[in-house]
């Protein structure tokens, strides 16, 4: 192609120090200014991260702003890009490039974040949440309120209800007595079993004495070296007595367990709530006859706490431990924040994620299983 130099002197390519226009001094000054500005912005970025000059979540924005400023310094002072009419092509090309970069990066981030839309919260890949771009070190995740089954109180023994202490809707502590069954027949049973135990123990003692003396007689006979029918008879007698003692011992054991069972029965006449919670349902009145084979529980106690299951990444799991406070909100219950404790942290199968269990008190029973929770665990 033939050179057509000078024809379009108004047309300039980027990066040019247009020779006729600029002197040596001007050129040096431009680059030096650019260098100083860029260095200052760089130092600013690094210092920003170290200190507390900017509120945590705002650090990212500040860094981005500083980066954009520094890129601008490069473009103007090093690449001599201006908006002068002779630079239009270059500036427009740059604008086109910036547009494409914005579309690719921004579009990709938007799309990738939404690709987890239909996936269970906390599962799936790369949780790009604008919240997590904040520079504080709290662990943020989403969780689900897990079902906690209400506790049924069933009758373990049969009998007649003598008293009922718990009403529906009442708050009970763990171990609180809710009802009592007539203990008297069960107590009589305990007494009977105790008598039987004493009898078997006496028998055992007697047989053991007999065995002891028979053994002693056998030893004396053997010590004299005698043989014959007398010795055999003595030996057989020892064996018989041994067997009897063994049988007595197992009798004693059986009697002991029978006694213990009878005592348990007595204990079970007191219907006790195993957990702290609220009585959901009461199905007994004093005077009712209840049987341990009945299907209906006497009471149903709903625990007063809720349990939230959340998933975090393995990296995040390093920042929390069991016992940490966790705060969460639930979309279905707006305007209320719940505070709980981390009860378990264990790696999920596959290793990439960690399951966190959080228990939080819920006296008003507003949290139902399946509700989505947004969890934040401030790092220590």
């Amino acid at each position, binding site marked *: 192609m033939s*050179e057509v*130099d000078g024809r379009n002197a108004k047309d300039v390519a980027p990066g040019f120090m247009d020779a006729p226009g600029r002197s040596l001094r001007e050129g040096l000054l*431009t680059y030096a200014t650019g260098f100083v500005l860029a260095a200052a912005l*760089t130092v600013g*970025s690094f210092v920003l991260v170290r200190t507390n000059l900017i509120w945590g979540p705002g650090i990212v924005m500040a860094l981005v702003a500083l*980066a954009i400023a520094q890129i601008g310094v*490069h473009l103007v002072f090093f690449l001599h890009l201006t908006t002068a009419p002779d630079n239009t092509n270059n500036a427009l090309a740059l604008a086109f490039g910036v547009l494409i970069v914005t579309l690719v990066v921004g579009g990709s981030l938007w799309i990738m974040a939404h690709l987890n839309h239909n996936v269970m919260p906390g599962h799936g890949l790369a949780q790009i949440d604008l919240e997590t*771009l904040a520079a504080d070190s709290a662990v943020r995740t989403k969780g689900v309120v897990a079902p906690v089954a209400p506790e049924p109180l069933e009758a373990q023994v049969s009998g007649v209800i003598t008293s009922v202490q718990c009403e529906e809707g009442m708050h009970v502590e763990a171990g609180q007595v809710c009802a009592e069954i007539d203990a008297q027949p069960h107590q009589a049973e305990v007494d009977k079993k105790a008598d039987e135990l004493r009898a078997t123990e006496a028998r055992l003692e007697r047989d053991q004495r007999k065995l002891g003396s028979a053994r002693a007689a056998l030893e004396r006979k053997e010590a004299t070296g005698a043989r014959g029918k007398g010795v055999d008879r003595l030996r057989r007698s020892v064996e018989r007595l041994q067997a009897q003692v063994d049988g007595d011992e197992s009798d004693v054991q059986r009697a002991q367990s029978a006694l213990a069972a009878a005592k348990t029965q007595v204990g079970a006449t007191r219907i006790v709530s195993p957990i702290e919670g609220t009585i959901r349902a009461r199905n007994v009145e004093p005077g009712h006859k209840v049987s341990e084979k009945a299907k209906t529980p006497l009471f149903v106690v709903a625990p007063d706490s809720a349990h939230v299951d959340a998933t975090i*990444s393995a*990296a995040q799991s390093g920042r929390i431990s069991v016992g940490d406070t966790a705060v969460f909100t639930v979309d279905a219950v707006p305007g209320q924040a719940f505070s709980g404790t981390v009860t378990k942290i264990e790696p999920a199968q596959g290793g990439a994620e960690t399951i966190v269990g959080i228990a939080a008190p819920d006296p008003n029973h507003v949290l139902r299983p399946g509700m989505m929770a947004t969890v934040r665990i401030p790092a220590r």
Partner: protein
Amino acid sequence: MTMIEAPTTAHGRPVDPYRLGRTDLATGHGEAGPASERVIIAFGFWIFLLSDIVMFSAFFAAHAVLQTATDNGPTGRELFDPSRVAIETGCLLASSFTCGLSAVATNARNLFWTQAALLVTGLLGLAFLGLEAHEFSGMIANGVGPDRSAFLSSFFALVGLHGAHVGVGLLWLGTMMAQLFVKGFGSILYRLICFNLFWHVLDIIWVAIFTVVYLIGEGR
């Protein structure tokens, strides 16, 4: 140039088949004919650099998505050493400055100062590359290489791609310095301009890298 005269209609008005309503002789930019060779070369190289920036943006997008995919492995906070990043940044920024100085020297057609500035640029670039190579080899030796997790893959790829560009640039720089030494200025003039553009854009990309990968990545 050609002697063909401007065509007219029978009535003496210029023709306008596209009905643009303009009667002046030329519209828009570039109507003075093909641009000069140096403008063409520099503009073409500028377009190439923009395409390179788009390629980097794809790697940036991948890194943004994968920044938290650490697969139980180490995170940015545990791996990155801010002081080393600061030194690397300083080296690259200074080399960008000395590259600009070489452009000033080229404009003044001063071979000695051009070569001197280019040499300093190259040495600073080598320092940058050496620090980065040291960082990479250390991480790989500790078992925290790109095959450890997706986050590390994207880190090594993005920063490594930039480093590869710096390496190719240094190779190019060396070749040009040799050519300058043997042949002086001449056709190399345009390529020096292109190298300037290239080196400055590499520094621009580094600004984005140290902001997004190191400084923001440290906070995760």
